[in-house]
């Protein structure tokens, strides 16, 4: 026992462990606060109420779909920023992070400006195809994707920069187009980075509130995700809101712990 656990390196330094523990406490104690104050007796009732179940299901579905959208659009975008020989990459990269800074409600308004019924693009979608995105589940997915995509793009771009481009060159000398090289050589080699980005992206989409309610509105079963349900519950029954948050939180920690353990702690 002792021998198996003997440390190669000396004691953990207090000067690092202390702030680390404080930091951990800072992040976790508020959650403990929530858990302590949550009216647990109402949990089963809440959990099995159909509206909560519906909101939870909708949240998971929309966050997952938004993540898929982010993957489909964001991974190529990350590739373009990391490898494509485009001018003004620095500014582009900074612009990509903008949805991070924009208050989500304003992000929702911006989406309405563009994709709303009278929006720059939306008016034609409506007039030509009869497609209207606001107030639909598709709108929720779009709003979540808009807010969450920067995380994916920045993570994947980082992984791409760290990947050795010589493998892509090797693939090229074997006759592989850039697309094939990307798909069969680069992507598998940066998979852990993509998974990490996906996790951040999914978590952000799951928690998204402001842009969603602004762009997609709030209609039970169609656009009411958990954060919206939490917000409305806060208006009338703060305790219920806390229980809902805790439910959302447990589900996401479960998913993240499973995923991250599997994918990310592998190499270390």
């Amino acid at each position, binding site marked *: 026992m002792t021998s198996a656990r003997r440390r190669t390196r000396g004691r953990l330094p207090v000067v690092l462990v202390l702030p680390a523990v404080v930091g951990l406490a800072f992040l976790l104690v508020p959650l403990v606060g929530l858990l302590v104050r949550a009216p647990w007796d109402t949990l089963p009732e809440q959990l099995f109420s159909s509206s909560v179940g519906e909101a939870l299901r909708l949240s998971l579905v929309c966050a997952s779909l938004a993540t898929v959208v982010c993957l489909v659009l964001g991974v190529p975008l990350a590739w373009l920023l990391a490898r494509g020989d485009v001018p003004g990459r620095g500014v582009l990269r900074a612009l990509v992070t903008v949805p991070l800074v924009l208050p989500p409600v304003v992000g929702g*308004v911006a989406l*309405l*400006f563009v994709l*709303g*019924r*009278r929006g720059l693009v939306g008016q034609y979608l409506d007039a030509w195809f009869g497609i209207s995105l*606001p*107030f639909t589940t598709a709108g929720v997915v779009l709003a979540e994707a808009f807010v969450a995509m920067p995380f994916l793009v920045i993570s994947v771009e980082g992984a791409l920069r760290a990947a050795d481009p010589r493998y892509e060159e090797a693939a090229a000398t074997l006759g592989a187009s850039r697309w094939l090289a990307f798909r069969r050589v680069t992507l598998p080699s940066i998979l852990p980075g993509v998974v990490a980005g996906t996790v951040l992206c999914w978590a952000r989409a799951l928690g998204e509130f402001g842009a969603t*309610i*602004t762009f*997609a*509105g*709030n*209609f*039970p079963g169609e*656009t009411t995700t958990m954060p*919206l349900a939490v*917000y*409305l*519950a*806060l*208006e*009338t029954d*703060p305790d219920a809101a806390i229980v809902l948050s805790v439910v959302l939180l447990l589900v996401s920690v479960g998913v993240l712990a499973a995923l991250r353990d599997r994918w990310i702690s592998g190499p270390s």
Partner: protein
Amino acid sequence: GADSSGAEVGGAVDGRVTVFAAASLTETFTRLGEDFEAAHPGVEVVFNFGGSSALAQQINQGAPADVFASAAPANMTQVGDAGGISGAAVTFARNRLEIAVPKGNPAGITGLADFGDADAKIALCAEQVPCGAAAKRAFEAAGVTARPDTLEQDVKAVLTKVRLGEVDAALVYRTDVRSTGEVEGIEFPEADRTVNDYPIAPLAKARNAAGARAFIDHVRSDRGRAVLAEAGFDTP
């Protein structure tokens, strides 16, 4: 006294008065605060505008507030139940719903009956928030089954959707219609059933109890009522 003007008690008040007020009072209370400060040199009014329920939550968690002006009696009750207010809350303003339509009224909305039209895009407040509860009463009175496309979490979100033409009609407060030139208001007969009271009260843990009382008096003074009325509130 309810009718005393701010100037009469000016000598007794000083320091800082912290007012927690519903976001829908932002414009009027900011103006009233300026008036109050002008009338009471040496007094500083500090506002914390936010959602009424969030404010109630903050007060119950020990926030340093002297006055709470809520957009709904329910939130005032939450604070009162926790023993947070000193004395009784009084209603200082009332608001009522109006139909809001985008400029030019493209869908030709005329009354509550149009809210049952499946083709029209309709936005309402969620029932959990006061404007949603009021809207529900209106539709019950009118015997209309509304077919909303969205149930917004606050009235400003509803208003945004009307402004941008995302919806053809919505129910919002009259004050909201007044606040922007970009929507048109349509009054409807059942609006009497939708009146919403704005209660105000000094708080038990107030650090400046005198200032709190003076500010409430100022709000309820003639000058205060004029400002509120100008914004579209009914003043009792």
